[in-house]
Each structure stands twice: as C-alpha cells, then as structure tokens.
C-alpha cells in the first residue's frame, strides 16, 4: 500500500552556494491558512496585522496581511487544526486550509535580492521592502505573495504561489541563482 505522506509540489533538495550567499529551500509543507474577514470582525481584531505587513504571533505562527480583509497564516507543518482553532469565527469569516494549494519557497542570503531582481520587477531595496513587508508580484511570470522574513542569518524572503506553479517557480529561481553559484541538478534549469 502506498505510504500516506504529504508531498510538496516542488519536492527538491535545498540549493545553496558555496559561500552561503544564496540559499533556496522548498518549505511547501508549512501550514498555510487563509482567513478572509471584514475589518469589523473579531477575527480581524485578533489577527491585528494590517495589509502589507506581517508579524509573528504565538508559537511561531506568521500572520501576513496579504490583501485588504485577507490574511494568510504560516506555521510549522501539520499545525492546521491548531492554527484554525485560534481564529474567532464570529461574523462572516472564511477560514480555509490552503496548505495543499500553495507552494512555498524560502530564498535567503545576501544575494537573495539580486537573484530575485532577475525574475521580479520590484525594488527590493531595504527601505522599499523592509523586513516584515508583504506584497504580491509576478515572479518569473508567476503570481506570488512575497514576504520579507529575515532570519538570524540575514536577509530572507518567503514566496508562495498556486501549487501547480511551484516546481516551475523553484526552477526559475534556481536558474536565476546560477550566476551566484547555484549548481542545480540536471533538468532544474530553464535552458
């Protein structure tokens, strides 16, 4: 019998440059919860994160104001029930587990903004996209939500997109990173 385990749409090993200036990681297994609620709802009050911003709430759950009256919550894998359970449901509120519906990639390192600049027409300067910023943009032609989510090691971005684009997006980012020292496996480049 086939094994019942979550499979990410990307399902790739982490790529990193020798100097550590760029790392690309498939984090598709992360729990992803979509919340849509009017600003007058208790859910909105609870999430308390404005559009374009992100903040970490209890136990490492990252709340992102992805669109007006819309939030996406990211947490460690297999935490959907716990995260959903914390969200007040009074009023017209939609809470949807979109873990299976989105691919998620983390790109980190001092060269990460340079690599992203090869595939995304956004000004990644620190004052335009500071740590915590949340925005949407086309990355290599794929509509993505992006989060500047710096780690202790430094600059880092999370990208999520519709699941079916995940593999392509990872390949496009891996391809963009070749200039900085990535050595993707055969078949994991655009050319």
């Amino acid at each position, binding site marked *: *019998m086939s094994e019942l385990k979550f*499979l990410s*749409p990307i399902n790739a090993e982490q790529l990193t440059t020798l100097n550590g200036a760029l790392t690309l990681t498939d984090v598709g297994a992360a729990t992803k919860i979509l919340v849509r609620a009017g600003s007058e709802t208790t859910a909105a009050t609870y999430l308390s994160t404005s559009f374009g911003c992100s903040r970490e709430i209890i136990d490492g759950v990252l709340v992102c104001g992805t669109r007006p009256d819309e939030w996406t919550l990211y947490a460690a894998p297999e935490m959907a029930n716990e995260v959903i359970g914390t969200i007040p449901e009074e009023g*017209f509120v939609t809470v949807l587990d979109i873990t299976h519906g989105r691919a998620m990639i983390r790109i980190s390192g001092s060269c990460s903004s340079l690599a992203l600049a090869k595939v995304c*027409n956004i000004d990644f300067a620190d004052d335009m996209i*500071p740590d915590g910023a949340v*925005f949407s943009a086309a990355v290599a032609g794929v509509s993505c939500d992006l989060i500047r989510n710096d780690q202790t090691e430094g600059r880092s971005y999370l990208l999520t997109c519709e699941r079916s*684009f*995940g593999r392509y997006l990872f390949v496009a980012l891996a391809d963009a990173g070749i200039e900085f020292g990535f050595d993707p496996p055969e078949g994991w480049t655009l050319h």
Partner: protein
Amino acid sequence: MTSCNRLPERDGEIINRSECLTFTWNGRTYSGFSGDTIASALAADGVDVFSRGMKYHRRRGILSADHWDPNLLVQVGDEPNVRAGHRRLTDGMSVSAQNVWPSLRLDLGSLNQIVGRFLSAGFYYKTFMRPKFMRPLYQKILSRFAPGGRVYWENSSHDIYDKRYSHPDVLVAGGGPAGMAAALAAADKGASVMLVEHEYQLGGHLLWGCSSDRMTAAVLESSVRDHRNIEILVNSTVTGRYDHNWVSVIDRSHPEFPERLIRARAGSLVVAPGLLERPYIFAGNDLPGVMLSGAVRRLINLWAVKPGQRAVILSANSQGDETIADLRDAGVEIVAELDARKGGTIIAAQGRGRVSKVTLGDGRTVNADLLVVATGWTAPTSLLNMAGDRPVYDPIAARYFPVSLPNEVLATGGIVGDGSIEELVEHGKSTGDLAANRALRLRHKRRKSLIWANNPDHPAPDEIPDNRSQLLRSPHPECYRSTTHGMVDMSEDVSSKDLMQAATEGFDSIELMKRYTTVTMGSAQGKLETVNAAAVLAESHDVPLADIGTTVWRPPFAPVTLGALAGRIHEPIRRSALQDWHEAHDATPLLAGLWIRPDHYGDAYSEAENVRSNVGIIDVTPLGKLDLRGPDVPKLLELVYVNRWQKLEIGRVRYGTMVAEDGVVLDDGVTGRLSSDHWLMTTTSSGAGAVWEMLEDWLQTAHPEWNVHVTPVTGGLTSINVAGPKSRTLLERLVTGIDLSSEAFPYFSVRKGTVASVDNCIIWRIGFTGELSYELHVPSGFAIHVWETLLEVGADLGISPFGVEAQRILRLEKGHYIVGQDTDGLTKAPSVGLDSLVKLDKADTLGLPELRAAYARNDLPVLVSLQPVDGSIVPDEACQIVAEDSNKILGRITSSRMSPTLGRSICLGQVHPTFAISGTIVTVLLVDGSRIPVTVMENHAHVDPEGERQRV
C-alpha cells in the same frame, strides 16, 4: 605578420603588450594585444580595407574607429555584423569580411559601380514593380544582395542571454567627465546610481587626450569606483527610455552572458553621451584612409597605431588641431593643414585600395595616404527624443541642442554645450545634484504611498531649483558638404547626389527622404549621417538647416541582439501533483494552456476501451475549482449562470453555463453544494482564471453588499476521475463513511468523505465519459497516495490510467461539447442546445438581453453530431462543411475522432440551421481537397444517448 603600424609604447595606451593575441582575418593569421579592438589590431598589422560598401561594393576602411563605424562590420566565427571598431580582440578569434564574393580583395559585387548610375536612390521601387507576377522572383534575387553577415540558422553556437531588473535612483547614460561627475554628485547625496558607459572604460574623450585629461579621468574614475552607491556598467549601452523613466540597458560586460538586458526603473535619468563626430561630404570621402579626427586620435593614443604616413587634415575645431599634434607625435608627415574656419576645404580624394591623392580647395593636388577631417559634431539626442524632446538646430554652434525635457530626465556634458573639462565636470556635478534631489523626493513619495515600505521618519528633501550655470555654445563653422558629391550614408551607400535627386522627385520631407533613399537606416542608424542628410536636403531647397527638422530617433539607441531581447524566457508551466507519476510512467506530454498533462500512456484507443469495459482513472486536476462561501452564493450563481440555483439542495450538483454580456458562451461546469453556505464551483481548465476574475469583479463592483468569499483551489485539490462500469466497485473498497449506491448517491451528487485514508476529500458523481464515474477531489499533498492506491486496489478490476486523448474520444462518443473547441467567440447559447437550461424569465443574468435576442433568431449555427458515410474517414478538425455543389461554407467540423466503441469515425460540428435536421447529408471539404458526405445525427451522443451507462 609584423605589426608594421604599431607605434612604440605610449603614455595612456590601453593595450597590454605583455599579452599577445593571435587571430585570423579572412583565413590569414594576425596578432594583436590584449586591449586592441579587432580594427586596431588589423590596422596595426597594415590592413586598410575592412569591408565593401553595400550597394557599389567600394572598398571601405576605418572611418570613426568606434562602435558606430559603418565600415567595420565583420563576421566573427558564426556571429554576423560584429562591430570591429568596438569589439575587443580575443585569442583565437576567426574574423572575416562579410557581404563579399568571392573575396574582400576581389569582390565581383564591385561591378555594380559600372552600372551605378542606374542604381540611384529608390531604383528598386522604379525597376522591380512590373510585371507584377515577377515580384517573387525579384524578391528572391534582391534578397541575395542583402547586406550583413552570415547567419547560421541550423548549427550556430549561442550562449545564454539574460535579463534583470533594477531600480536605481539615478541612471547616468555616459561615463565621460560630465557623466562621472553627475554620478558622483548624485551618489554623494545618498542616491543609488547606475553609471552606464558604452565603451570598455570610463573617461570618454579624456582617454585619448593629453596627460592632464587622462589624469582627470583617472581621478574621477577612481572616485566613482570607490563609491558604494554607484554601480558601474562599462561596455554597456542605454538603448531606450520609455514612459515613467523605464530605461533599457544592454550590458555586454557580464562574464557569464554575452549580453544582458537590464530593465531599469530610474528615478532620474541623466543623459551624458558626449558628442559624435560627423563625416564631411566630398568626392571619395568613403575611400580607405579617409578618417575622422577622433578615429585618428584613438588609434594613436589608445592603441598606438600609426594611421598613415602622409596626412592631409581639414580642421574646423580644436580636436582637429589636437589631432595635428598627435599625428606629428606619431611620426606622420603632415602634407597639408586646412582650416575650415578660414574657408579651407577638400574637393576630392582619389586612390584605389586607399587614398593616394587629395585635391584641396585651392585646386592643388597632394599625395597623401591619410585624409583626416574634423568638421563637426552630432549630438546623439536619441534618449532625449525618446523622452519627448525635439532638439533644435543652432547654426552658430552647427549642431542640435535639447529644448524641453521632462522633470525626470536631465542632460549634461557636450550634448548641452561646450566648455573646459572643469566646466563640464562642474555642470555634471550640478546635474547630478539636481537628479538626486528629484529622485530622492520621488523615492520619499513612493515610500509614503507603498503600504509595505518603510514609512520615512523624515520629510522629503527640499526641492532645489534648476539653477545650473549653462554651458556655452562655441561657434563652429557649418561644414557639411564640399563642392563635390560624396557619400552621406556609408552603411547604405547613399550619396548626396541621391538625396538631391530624391528631393527633386518630391521627397522633400526629411522623413520621406529617409524612407525613399534609406539614408540613416543602416547599421549606424543615423549617428553619423542624420545631420549631413538634413544639411543636403536644406541645401537642395536652399533653406536653413534649422527649417528641415530631423528624423525621429527611436529605440534602440544601439543595435541589440535578438538574444538579449529574448533573454531568459519565463513561460510558466503548471504541473499537477501527479505529473511526476505520469512522467515516470512514460506518459506522452501534452501542453494544454499552461498545464502539462498526460496525453496518453502509449495507446489512447486501448485506454478508452478499458474505460468502457472496466475502469480507468484520469488526472483532471486542471479543471478549475473555486471554493465559494457565504450566504449569498446562490445570488452570485443566479447572476453568472444562465440557469437557476436558489433551490439546489445540499449534496446535489448542477450543470451550469455562463455567457458573456454579448450572449456568447463563456464557460461551463458543475457546481455542488457542500453545506448551506459552502459551494464548490468547477470551470473549464482554460477558463478558471477568467471566471475567478469575473466573479470577483461582480462581487467587488456591482454587489459589494453580498457576503461571498471566492477562493481558487484548483491546484490544492487534485482531481481524479474514476470512470467505467467497475468504478463503483473500486471506490467501495477505498471510500469510507459514504454509501456509494445509486439510491444513496445518485447521479449529479456530491459528498465529503475519506478516500484511501485521506480525509477531507470531495467525491462527485458526475462524468464526462458517458460511463458510471466519480470525480475525487483530494488534498494535493496526498494525491499520489490516492492515485497509487486506486491502481493497486483496482488491479483485479482491470484498472488502468487514461490520458487526455482517451478522454476526448470518450466525451465525443458521448457528445459532450468543449467550450472553446466546439464553440468559438461567436457561439451563443441557442447554438449548443442549451434550450432547457436557459431561463429567459430570470430577473437578471449576465447576457440576458442578448440571450433573449438570440433565442428570437432562427439563423444561428447549430452544434450537431455528425458521422461520415464512410466510417473509415476522420475529417480533420476545422474542416469546412460546404454546399454539395460549391464551396459555399455552411459550417465546420469542431471535433472528430475514430470511435473505438463504434468502430467508425464520429464528429461534432456547427452547421447552418437549415442543415441541422437529423438525417441530412452534408458535404465536408477535406484538407486534401476531396469532398465526403457526412450524416447529421439525431442526438449529440453517438454512444448511449439515453445515458443508461452513467446512471447505473
């Protein structure tokens, strides 16, 4: 080969004499040094002739010794049209002349000179017009004379080109003294700066100037390189400026890519390209040995190449005067110095392989192998033109100057005036200050308006006025043409005589003349010839040059390879969670829209037959899926579908069709009600995005008061269609908690449950194949587990996967139409047989007025099923249905396949309503021109029209 013209080591030379490079020119081995261009290395080795003219195939040598030199286009390996005046020499390079036959030395194309009088401007418009039927032949022959190098379509070696984006506050186009000063000043103000220089080194004309000039350049360059706010791109060109300061830059300096297109959004653009030297028009001005003064100075001072032995020089400016000093310093004998400011001129140059005699304005003829002209400057205002400026000619300075620039574009350096190095630097600095001020104010505004940006904690910089001291315009004689005729455009072999003839023929506008004569349309793209062409036109009309105007300079400023424009192509591909499995099992891929799908696993007919007899599974994930939540979902569905939705019970499914506001069928699918406020809508694969946008559009604009949340869940739910008479048996082994019997789970129902231990699956009893079938929507992270479990558990039932092709066969047998294939952009609801579905009495539905109008008509095409009388013939899709005795079009075949169930060909097609009656024989015109009779059938379904198989 000895470097016969190489001078002893000189201060300021940019060649590295310790690194010798070997290359071939037309098969013969030569050598040069690192830092040489192809042209400088060949010139050092005594080569005079580099190319032949396009039309008359006259010999051509160095003219400007830079990127714009029209005479220095060569083939390097399999790369055509390489600019030998710019491209640096590399070891092992294979360089050859292009557009010559059989050789550069003996080119039979030069016979055109004999018939030159018949090849004047526009000759092909006059000559090759009649007879009309000969035009294809003319075209074929003329194309053989097209200039340019050889393109190796089949086996060219090409590298990977690249693209990137950039958002500098200030982008400076031009790395001369003014450009560098502007970059430094802007960077000092805190602006991020991108400095782009066309040549390989910063410094502009200072590089071939005196030691003091070179020192100034070195100091500026050092400061620029040390500044952390400045990104320097040399051997790169700003090729275009577009709206909102979108600036394209071609970067040729990257170590890994031959060219990279940088798409920069600049806060301010500083245009500092300097000036280009323009040629002088006289008889023989295209002979090898006739050079611009800048070319001579570069050859001597940058590459230590002696450009000739005996020189005549015509000078109208200080650069010409400095060239005389350089020539003397290089050991060139000056046989005549002519000062154009005092009326000096050249009448003609003569020679065979190279100039040998020069006739001066006073009538004297002197022997010389080098004729240097320094007769004026062209302001390369292209980027300013692209910013909306229309530069105006100043007869005192004999060149054009910018007039009116948008706030975010500034100009500095020679393009705006003349001055000492200090004055140019000072102007550059004040321009950089201004550019930074404007850019930083814009950045401040953006940071305040972007919700995710760092809201600045300081006010915007105060606006500083543009109080730059203006650079003066030095007087310069208007030197354009001598008393004789010569070449104006050496790229296109257009002479001043041609231009005057065109003017006489009535092409008296510079734009018309350009198109008629092709002047300025060659490789130099007007950089050297635009002003001279306008001057000749002005002369022919006897009007001031200022009244002539100029041609409009459009992007790109410099030629760009197609590779750079294409770059890395981002064409997203969508993959279902099962695509890895499909590929591992040798599925033939099919690209359907953005999705890659399994077309078949080897034999589509067998796959289809297995569905009819056993059970098959197909990955239908691309099916659009929208999660709808809220109490007002029925109102939304009533609005967008042509049928009714208010009373659909929980657990039931309904088919719906959407039409656009013009009544044309837009999309279709089934929607199921999972709970009172939770629905799941399916759409066509290709229509998913458009339908989502449409729903959001109506919700956000027309009905914001409705409580509905729409969430696309296409990729999150992997869709597996389980079809075939044994499908229920199979699912009963894997589905828990749901009674799958026909009574408990009838056709067009939906349930939530567990499949193969995977929770939160949605199970639909619907189908597209005409068989008993179920559609499983499973969380995609577990899709592969469910898929493999189905195959494992169903092995004894004869299960096998089937692909898109088998599905198409099966649905055609069943007569289901596909929106976009069996309908088109004109197909309205009555055409596809939706009569019972469409509710014209609804209060409101998108396209309702058009639907009512459509149902009042009786002339709309009708979708019918068709069967060729000869069942072995499968008409191609899109074959026309025509009248029996003519080619009058009555309709078309929209779908066709060989049916494995019926053993004959079957079709769907749209026909004129007169021929839509069952039993009518219509004629189909096949691709090979033959005609076959085809019968219109009674029902859309060729197989099981009563639907007994799917309702068991």
